[in-house]
């Protein structure tokens, strides 16, 4: 049973064309995260939601936005994708925002920018 579901698995977009990636969870977790992972690099945290409270990382470009309309869903919007935004985007959840919480990941969306 999938617990963190990301759609689509593969997304191709054109340079500058807005794109939205989606994530849903059946765990009823309070926290949802978006990570960006480029090839052979560490997953990099873009932002997270603690309930409805949005927390942006200081170095996340303004081109990246997120929405969490309810507990189950979270979206990543890339307003004007550049070639450098091609990456794997990983959604993750955790029950709470504590030091010893485990994250549960989705399978990711591989984004290509043409």
């Amino acid at each position, binding site marked *: 049973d999938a617990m963190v579901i990301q759609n689509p*698995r593969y997304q191709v977009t054109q340079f500058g064309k807005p794109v939205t990636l989606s994530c849903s969870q059946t765990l009823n977790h309070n*926290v949802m995260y978006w990570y960006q992972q480029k090839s052979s*690099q560490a997953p990099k945290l873009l932002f997270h939601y603690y309930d409805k409270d949005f927390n942006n990382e200081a170095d996340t470009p303004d081109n990246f936005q997120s929405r969490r309309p309810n507990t189950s869903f979270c979206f990543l919007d890339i307003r004007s994708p550049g070639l450098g935004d091609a990456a794997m985007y990983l959604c993750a959840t955790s029950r709470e*925002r504590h030091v010893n919480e485990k994250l549960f*990941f*989705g399978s990711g969306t591989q984004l290509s920018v043409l």
Partner: protein
Amino acid sequence: DQQVKQNSPSLSVQEGRISILNCDYTNSMFDYFLWYKKYPAEGPTFLISISSIKDKNEDGRFTVFLNKSAKHLSLHIVPSQPGDSAVYFCAASDDTGKLIFGQGTTLQVKP
């Protein structure tokens, strides 16, 4: 400035032998350390963790060792099995619960 580093991009071991994956960190405020395993086309899955108050945690074939003075942790897999072939990510958590990941080490276990 990478706070969590896995300096070996890949590791190859023979089935039945020990696999040792290493991880170094720079931030002394990290309180909790985790290892995640990732198969191709899947998201990372939690493997094992250790709190900063411990120096060892064991779960079946997997043992994580923490050396706080050296800011170093390692994951030991004994005995290694072909199904262990995957990318292993080390991650560290500060008191906000935010995870910082290393670049990953690709482990290949040969039959």
